[in-house]
């Protein structure tokens, strides 16, 4: 019991350390990109026609001194630790405020989408494996394959035309990946020797599935949960833009069109943090002992 607990603690601390390193690196990369992007530090003061060329040069040099890359990064980190994510250049609002307004909307969409995708994907995968009927498997595979070939943005447009709720689109985008992965995993587990023996001994189909197939596939299915969160967040951009849902996906698109780099980098960092947390949680839940050893 104690060994289990200590390996779990070790696993959590290793994941936390990795998270911090990745965030530090990501933050540095983001700050570097913002600092080096064309147009950074251009001051409206420079447009003052009364200033001569020398004054403009002096202004630029003072900005360059203020904003050397290490200095910029240190200031960025200090602000980040205070919870100040900077101001959006296009929307002229603090990034923190924008995130507070928009994040709940995206979380709601992603939550509904993931719930739908997992319910449909896992149910169909289980049906395909348990029924062992070619027609069921073929129909489910066909549906998933068709959905896999439609771009997320087109699916969102079709929902707008059909006046259907846009949040469901996220579910349909993630569903085929969950279905294909779960089906393959469950099929592989169902063909293991101990499952065949259990069947040969006359155990019922549902019991075999619940006690012998699902436990084998469960760790990898849990690992898929983390990946599915990343897929859903990525799909949130076209869905929120086209279905007019005011979430962070729509915000990211507005920031990209306006080249609002401060907002974009912070958004990407935060979404990365969430997906990393989801992946780590899934990893720990799937196999706490191995996570400690990793």
């Amino acid at each position, binding site marked *: 019991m104690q060994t289990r607990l200590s390996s779990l603690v070790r696993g959590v601390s290793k994941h936390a350390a*990795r998270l911090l*390193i*990745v965030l530090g*690196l*990501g933050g540095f990369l983001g700050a570097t*990109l913002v600092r080096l*992007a*064309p147009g950074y530090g251009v001051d409206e003061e420079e447009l003052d026609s009364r200033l001569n060329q020398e004054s403009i040069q002096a202004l630029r040099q003072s900005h360059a001194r203020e904003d050397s890359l290490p200095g910029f990064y240190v200031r960025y980190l200090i602000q980040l630790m205070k919870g100040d994510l900077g101001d959006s250049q296009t929307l002229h609002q603090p990034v923190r405020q924008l995130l507070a307004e928009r994040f709940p909307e995206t979380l709601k969409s992603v939550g509904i989408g993931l719930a739908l995708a997992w319910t449909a994907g896992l149910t169909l995968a289980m049906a395909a494996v348990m029924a062992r009927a070619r027609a069921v498997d073929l129909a489910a595979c066909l549906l998933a*394959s*068709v959905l*896999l*070939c*439609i*771009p*997320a*943005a*087109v699916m969102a*447009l*079709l929902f707008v*035309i*059909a006046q259907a709720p846009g949040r469901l689109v996220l579910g349909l985008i993630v569903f085929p990946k969950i279905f294909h992965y779960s089906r393959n995993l469950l099929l592989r587990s169902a063909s293991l020797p101990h499952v065949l023996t259990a069947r040969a001994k006359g155990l019922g189909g549902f019991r075999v599935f619940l006690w012998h197939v699902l436990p084998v596939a469960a760790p990898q299915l849990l690992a898929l949960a983390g990946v599915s969160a*990343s*897929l859903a*967040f*990525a*799909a949130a*951009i*076209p869905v929120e*833009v*086209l279905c007019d849902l005011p979430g962070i996906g729509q915000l*990211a*698109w507005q*920031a*990209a*069109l306006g*080249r*609002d*780099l401060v907002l*974009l*980098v912070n*958004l*990407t960092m935060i*979404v*990365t943090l969430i*997906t*990393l947390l989801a*992946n780590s949680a899934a990893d720990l839940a799937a196999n706490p002992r191995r996570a400690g050893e990793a």
Partner: protein
Amino acid sequence: MKWVRLAAILFLVVVSVACLSADFVAPAPYARQFREVPDAAPSSQHLLGTDDLGRDRFSRLLYGTRVSLLLAPAAALLSSLLAAVIGGAAGFAGGWLETSVMAATDLFLSLPWLFLLITVRAFLPLNVSPIASVAITFALLGCLGWAAAARVICADARTLCGSDVIVLARACGIGGFRLLWRHVVPNLKPILYAQFWISIPVFILTEANLGILGLGVAEPLPSWGGMLRELESFSSFSAQPWLFVPLILLMVTVSCFHLALQNEEVWA
């Protein structure tokens, strides 16, 4: 299922030939405007009608298919090469290089793909020429899509380095670059081919998403993503069904890549 795969490959060949010969097959250049017939329904002159600027949709579909269907494999080639170099070197060298590369792939795979893509796209100028926009879009796809493939290749290279063939080659005094070039890389070819094929439909779909969001190939150059933007002004499914032709072509093409890929995976 061999006939299904053959049919898929045949379809891809036909579409590729048609789009490559767009200069001869297309009834008009993709940017030519027939100002007297904007938003026209399909007719013998304009097989898929015209768009709101009076441009022939069939011609634009042919040229757009050329852009999407030729440049997605180019981007896939770039990402596969990057994955081969990065993943292969990490798997072959092992140690800190492998650990660093795996950490970098972890970071890349945790970043939601579209967020990363539009962030990097936004760092580059948005008002560029159409040709530059094509190059930027597909170069970005190629440069940012290497992580998953590198992970697979690294794992494969690591397994290969412990295999009897490589141990024997090392025992015979072969080492360094020669070992990598003559023995490791040829054995990684099947997995590289598979990664290349996997990437193509992913890049086609991503370009379509970027195009619809206005961050892909710039007008007047057509691409599947750009053409699908027309669906934004669509009001009902029965009003202009011919607007769905680019979507159907995209779906069938992506399906054909998946079908062709299934056997490629079996072979690998």
